[in-house]
């Protein structure tokens, strides 16, 4: 029971922290990209391509956090005793 409570608290606080930091970083990326596009409209295509790459790279960090959360929820971590027993066998 305590394991489930700890799991919910960990995922419930850990994943939103990842999302908040990624959102702030992506907001800064998009705003500077738009400023650059407004200053030089002829470079808009290249800036847009670079912006999409940067957004996807930042988003992938959130996806890593989501992956760990899913692994914890559905595959779970064994206790260290069972892990050692499995390794020793």
């Amino acid at each position, binding site marked *: 029971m305590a394991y489930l409570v700890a799991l919910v608290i960990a995922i419930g606080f850990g994943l939103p922290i990842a999302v908040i930091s990624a959102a702030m970083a992506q907001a800064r990326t998009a705003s500077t990209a738009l400023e650059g596009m407004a200053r030089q409209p002829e470079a808009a295509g290249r800036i847009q391509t670079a912006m*999409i790459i940067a957004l996807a790279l930042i988003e992938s960090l959130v996806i890593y956090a989501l*992956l760990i959360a899913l692994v914890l929820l559905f595959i779970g971590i064994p206790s260290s005793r069972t892990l050692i027993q499995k390794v020793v066998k």
Partner: protein
Amino acid sequence: MHEQGTWLHFLYAYHILPEWLPEAVPVTWLVIIVLSAVAILSTRRLERHPRGLQNVAEMSVSALDSLVRLIFDSPLGSKFTPLIGSFFIFILAMNLFGLIPGFMSPTANINTTVALAITAFVMVQYYAVKEIGVRRYLRHFAGEPLWLAPLMVPIHLIGELARPISLSVRLFGNIFGEDMVIAILMIIVTMTMANVLVPVQFPMMLFAIFTSFIQAMVFSILVSVYIAVAVTEEHAEGHGGHGD
């Protein structure tokens, strides 16, 4: 999270395929057959002024070619267009297949994306060795001041190995995540409003079309950036330019 069935589940029911084969594999074969059929149909009886399917094919090929040349900053990038374009079209087709009712995205299985990432990794090393030679390829791991080599070589190796890992996990996480959101929306509707089945997952499926495009484009652009960085090692640029 057990396996869900698709239209191809009969291959398992009639024991044509063994049980341990993930359902993503025959769906990938189906994607390959569909893409090959479109390719063959659009290149039969080539005409000087393209119409119809050949026109669509030519527009996509020239769009992919201009994208690759934009990354490489030179017309020499066109020799990598077949690889990058194939990655893009294949990954896009696999991502979109999951939105067809009754099928799954093969990229929602980690094995598919790891296979794609390993292929990309091997091709990057192959093109690096082919274009700049084995000696300069090994030399670039040592970094700029040569006496810093014992520090730079492990850092470069780990950075190089982190690229296929991040490519595969990014693609898998995005596609699996959006599939899971669609499934959970359907489950919520059936569990709470079982009399009035409103398809609330439909806007999410439209968004999933968009992210399928974006993820295929990001994979292809990143692979082309890795090849561009590995191939143009002549001018002594530092390794702070392109991130992994």
